[in-house]
């Protein structure tokens, strides 16, 4: 079964952790994740600028490890990311901003990537809100 997983909530939201546990369980069950797509506040999960207190779950780091280990396609919506200051080197250069928050394994791209994933997958699962 091919899953597209879309995440809409910030890194500290419980739904972001649920999305990661679902994604892990999907792979462990022998399924495929065609793409992770971060939209709205979900873009914060790709941010390398988040500093999590040591005794709390570091979601951006967990996502980064998960995506890297399984060589997944992790796409961050570029418009949502720009609006929230989650820039990669290219966008920081384009808009002359000092802070670079996103790098590998994440790719900044458009909403077409969400539609493309929906077309490719058997199921779209969205996580967000509370």
């Amino acid at each position: 079964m091919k899953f597209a997983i879309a995440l809409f909530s910030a890194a500290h939201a419980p739904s972001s952790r649920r999305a990661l546990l679902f994604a892990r369980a999907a792979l462990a069950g022998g399924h495929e994740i065609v793409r992770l797509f971060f939209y709205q506040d979900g873009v914060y999960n790709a941010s390398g600028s988040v500093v999590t207190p040591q005794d709390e779950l570091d979601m951006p780091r967990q996502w980064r490890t998960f995506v890297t280990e399984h060589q997944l396609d992790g796409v961050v919506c570029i418009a949502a990311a720009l609006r929230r200051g989650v820039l990669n080197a290219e966008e920081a250069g384009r808009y002359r901003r000092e802070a670079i928050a996103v790098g590998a394994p994440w790719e900044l791209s458009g909403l077409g990537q969400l539609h493309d994933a929906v077309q490719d997958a058997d199921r779209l699962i969205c996580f967000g809100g509370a």
Partner: protein
Amino acid sequence: MPKSLLIISRQSPWSGSSAREALDIVLAGGAFDLPIGLLFLDDGVFQLAAKQDARTLQQKDLSANLQALPMFGVEALFVCGDSAAERGLDPNTLSLEEIQVLAAPEITALIDRYHQVITL
């Protein structure tokens, strides 16, 4: 056959970027010629209220984008009749003329018809 996607928009146009970002998914799907439906539910029906003034709140006017939906190939437009009635909106005076007003059982059937759904 491309898979169809239903977007259910539940937020008022003035509650932050959620309504706009829901609409952006719809417009992007329309631009790719995908079968996209848009249902306004709960506070989302306020996006359809007539004579709103975005400038007062220094916002961009969402209703102009809504009017452009048919031009983007998005013609499957629906509104929950109960949500509109509860919020004192007359379905006949909504800013989108081509919109279909649905009762609850019709919304159940609508969700059923689409391959995937995103509720924002």
